């Protein structure tokens, strides 16, 4: 902010505080209306009145790299040579054990098993299996904790993704990021607490849709809703001033507005007016802070190279990963990415290669970039989709191609950073890659663990709505201590 404007604003604020009768003694009261503390918990009283965090957090910030559509664990991380051996043979009923199928394959006469067309190798000291489509990820496996035994209840996209993001298959509950914003407040004075970035997959450019309710606040205050950052001239909706409106002009306007509002406050005595004045100030600051954050011009070449050439193209997953790092650097609490297109019902080898190419280098770069800046220690990174994919082919199985339907019983995610055991693999699936052989981890367990890492006991963190105390984990979920460092 330009110096003279800052000065002016401060004067204005002093004037304001004086006018509303807050002397130096009224510090606590002042912080409640402090526009610089609107999103922020800061050092003052937690605005939610919650006694949080419950214990010292391992992760102060979270980046959730959501892979929408359901990436195939069998072609990425969960290596099952048995499936290659038995290629074309039917899935035995003894393995399927009555698993319900989606309407897309329930009518299939046969369920021919299919191993991955991609080569797998073991990498790093941790000897983690990674397929050839994820070469950059392969290089950093010793930073990662793979969970091979994620499982969910939903078998279709809408309920499954809603379940992951809100803890319930039916819409209406707050997203994880909204819970975090509500519970922990902000570490940043100028940017929204819960930031959202979307990208489209090149493997399947028109895959599954997304829904804005996925980053919604549900029954929490809309202060906690995810704010979408978009590629293009208006990075946050309605951020950009009209043509011809200078910053100084905007400043002046807000000062005049503030004065009029203060007058109203004096007449009507409604504290809500002070809150509104503060929101205009926050909006004004966002008009500077958001474009600053979005501007990657200052990033050196070696960083761009690290994330890949795509990171120069706004709106790509790679560009969003770079932005995620910039947001985290500014202490934004929760950054939620969505990468679309992971729904490979057919033509999997081609589509998956494209999807993997979108995310592989940039994900690895993000993790290593955080690490080299010392941010990985207290930033949790999560990578994964809403379910896995079947070990049998959907549609015709040929020598070169196959598809896979949705599979809820087991799939792979990985995590890294704040409080997570690096170079570790949790859980095992059976040799068919169909059932969990050892150590399951449910969606609610993941949510419970995420909360635990941020210093929250998920059983105690509730919000009372229409008479009921709601939790992100509903009435379930266990913290997975085995994956904690």
């Amino acid at each position, binding site marked *: 902010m330009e110096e003279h404007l800052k000065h002016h604003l401060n004067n204005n604020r002093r004037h304001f505080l004086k006018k509303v009768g807050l002397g130096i003694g009224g510090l606590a009261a002042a912080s409640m209306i402090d526009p610089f503390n609107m*999103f922020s918990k800061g050092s003052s009283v937690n605005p939610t009145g919650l006694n949080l965090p419950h214990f010292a957090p391992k992760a102060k910030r979270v980046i959730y790299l959501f892979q929408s559509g359901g990436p195939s664990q069998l072609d990425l991380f969960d290596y099952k040579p048995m499936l290659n051996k038995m290629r074309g043979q039917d899935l035995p009923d003894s393995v399927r054990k009555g698993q319900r199928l989606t309407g897309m394959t329930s009518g299939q006469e046969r369920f021919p098993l299919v191993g991955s067309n991609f080569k797998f190798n073991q990498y790093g000291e941790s000897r983690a299996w990674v397929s050839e489509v994820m070469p950059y990820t392969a290089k950093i496996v010793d930073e990662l904790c793979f969970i091979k035994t994620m499982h969910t209840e939903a078998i279709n996209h809408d309920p499954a993704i809603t379940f992951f993001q809100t803890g319930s298959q039916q819409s209406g509950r707050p997203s994880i990021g909204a819970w975090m914003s509500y519970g922990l407040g902000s570490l940043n004075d100028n940017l929204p607490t819960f930031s959202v970035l979307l990208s489209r997959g090149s493997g399947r450019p028109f895959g599954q849709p997304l829904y804005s309710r996925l980053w919604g606040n549900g029954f929490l205050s809309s202060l906690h809703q995810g704010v979408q950052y978009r590629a293009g001239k208006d990075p946050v909706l309605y951020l950009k001033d009209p043509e011809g409106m200078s910053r100084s002009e905007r400043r002046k306007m807000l000062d005049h507005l503030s004065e009029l509002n203060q007058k109203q406050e004096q007449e009507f005595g409604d504290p809500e007016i002070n809150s509104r004045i503060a929101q205009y100030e926050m909006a004004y600051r966002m008009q500077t802070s958001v474009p600053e954050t979005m501007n990657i011009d200052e990033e050196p070449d070696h960083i761009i190279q690290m994330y890949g050439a795509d990171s120069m193209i706004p709106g790509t997953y790679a560009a969003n990963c770079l932005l995620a790092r910039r947001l985290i650097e500014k202490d934004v609490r929760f950054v939620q990415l969505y990468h679309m297109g992971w729904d490979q019902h057919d033509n999997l080898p081609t589509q998956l290669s494209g999807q993997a190419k979108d995310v592989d280098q940039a994900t690895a770069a993000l993790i290593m970039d955080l690490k080299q800046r010392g941010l990985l220690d207290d930033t949790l990174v999560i990578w994964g989709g809403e379910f896995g994919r079947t070990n049998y082919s959907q549609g015709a199985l040929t020598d070169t191609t196959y598809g896979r339907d949705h599979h809820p019983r087991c799939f792979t995610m990985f995590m890294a950073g704040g409080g997570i055991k690096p170079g570790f693999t949790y859980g095992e699936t059976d040799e068919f890659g169909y059932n969990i052989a050892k150590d399951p981890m449910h969606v609610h367990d993941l949510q419970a663990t995420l909360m635990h890492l941020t210093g929250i006991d998920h059983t105690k963190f509730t919000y009372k709505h229409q008479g*009921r105390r709601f939790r992100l984990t509903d009435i379930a979920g266990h913290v997975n201590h085995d994956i904690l460092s």
Partner: protein
Amino acid sequence: MPQKQFSFLKLGLFFFIPFCLVIIVKFGINKMNSSEPSYQEYASSNTLSKTIIPDKIDYIFDVKPILSDRCYLCHGPDEGTREAGLRLDIKENAFGAIGENLDRHAIIPGDLENSQLVFRINNPDQEKIMPPVHSNLTLSDYEKKVLTKWVEQGAEWKDHWAFIPPTKPNVPEIENNILAANEIDNFIINKLSQKGLTPSEKATKEKLIRRVYFDLTGLPPTLHDLDSFLQDQSESAYEKVVDKLLASEAYGERMTSEWLDVARYADTHGYQDDLERVMWPWRDWVIHAYNKNLPYDEFIKWQLAGDLLPEATLEQIVATGFNRNHKITQEGGVIDEEYRVEYVMDRTNTTAKALLGLTMECARCHDHKYDPISMEEFYGFYSFFNQLKEKGQIGYSEIPKPNIEITPKEIEDVLSFIKMPDSIEKVNLMVMKEDDDFKRKTHILGRGVYDNPTEEVEFSTPAALLEFTDKYDKNRLGLANWFFDEKNPLTARVAVNRLWQQMFGVGLVASMADFGNQGDLPSHPELLDWLAITYRQDGWDTKKMLKRIAMSQTYQQTSKTTPKLQTTDPNNVYLARNTRAKLTAEMIRDNALSVSGLLVEKVGGPSVKPYQPDGLWAETTSGQGLTKYIPDTGESLHRRSLYTFWKRTVPPPSMTTFDAASRDDCTVQRQKTSTPLQALVMLNDPQLIEASQTLAVEMLNKSELSDEERITSIFRKITSRNPDSSELNNLLEFLENSENNFNP
């Protein structure tokens, strides 16, 4: 948008106007509130009541809220999770013997030593204390003392107020009758004097007309309306305004805006690819029904069961679209029954929430934890809505059945309220319609899951409210009649509470969605019941009820608060003044359109697509269905906001930013928040800028006016009052400084 070359002065005004529009939200209408106040919050926010135990403990006000919130989870209506066989929500059980040997009692009136409840809640032993440590629930010292004192005073018991049918109370006498315009005021003033408070003075005429315009029509008064009212010195001046507003078409639109939230109305199916649907003819019916003042009982009966009425008219069948507004999926691969069950659930929950103010959905997976609604009763209620021949998964180009075809002929004959454009040959509207030869058996669904049917149930309603006896038909029509049985304890209360909320921002029961044990207690129980019975006795005449509220002195009070009131009644529970409230999302935009002269006052028809930021639909779509938002042109850009096309998975951001409901499910109370994103919309939404420009151009064309006169005129249009000298100076100074910043 008009892109005009502005002169020196024009530039100044151009930037002044959006700023002025910003002010609207601030003080245009003198209603603004932050969060939902509730009796409990009020009680707990009042330091006095936190520390001082009442002399006489009242079961309903002091005790039951604690028992319900901290004890019912394990000692309440849900048999499945009940501990030690003890339930505290029913008197016989709460006072009965417990324990293996039936040798102990939770509550023995007057006996502190032998009452287990007293013993356990005050027990320092972590193993014995109630609520148990693992529940994460605790009792404060104050709450322990209240419960203890209640037992000491004899543990007087009363049934839950909302489940007892209302009776018409006498209108209280008040000392100074001159303060009361009608019975409402007697109730309010009576309570105020008990609290040592007095009503506030009347709001200024400018404030009053603005308030009542927005509350009844959702639009601001024009300068002409304002001037005529100010000039009308007759005693009936205000009443004339109220009558005029209730007779205007805008009244129906305003009422419909509220009802669309309840009915979770939208223009798309809502799941996954979120395809377009046609439900707007039903919306047109709602506007029509309000405008012709269809009595509330018929308004509801038609929507619930219009198809089952004897010799049902086409209009009555159109009304049943209400229960087809739920979301519907086309997602490839879903299991049909799973989603069909969701639709029945939605109709069940919507009906219960909208008409009974109950969280009945809690009894889907287990007996209700707080209210006397068993799982069996839930599915008994559910069975009414389980009789459609419908599919869970629809095709991409399928209009879900049952539906009816509406042609121009029918519109001409009997459905003239449907505003179908000439370009459309016919529409198919989803409705409720049952086949005589089709009856689906309903089973309790274990854990609420579609593929886990257990025992079969009959049509029924929660017996604690009113039993569904043989006198009612065993179908939705029977259910509709059950709602309007004089013994139904909730229907009328919930209905008047909704009207009260519309006029005062907060209901007499603040928790509009929950009249159950966990809900807020009524701030004025007698008034609520008086209104409920009066509404029924007046033949469910909605306009009459709204007029009664609008004519009360309580409504006409100023919303100014005082330091004393801020301390004694910060949430304005007792209404010693009116409450400041925000304009709704619809009002904010409609107001801008109206004052700038852009508003196209055309009623009904297909939903429209005003300005929306580029790319919002495109960036999340799968390529199917509505892939690209193409704004309309011409008059469709400037229709009232209730006509804005609602795509559920990507709703219009300028609306949702201002707390419009998501329309994913039934909403009876919107959030009221204040966020920086709202500020951004006010500053930069093209719609608001266009309105500003239009207003500016109009003013600038009046070359005979001075800057001062222009500002005064615009200020007045936007706020319905004149600026005072400091406001005028503020704006003149801004205008002057703005001009200096531009080099034309």
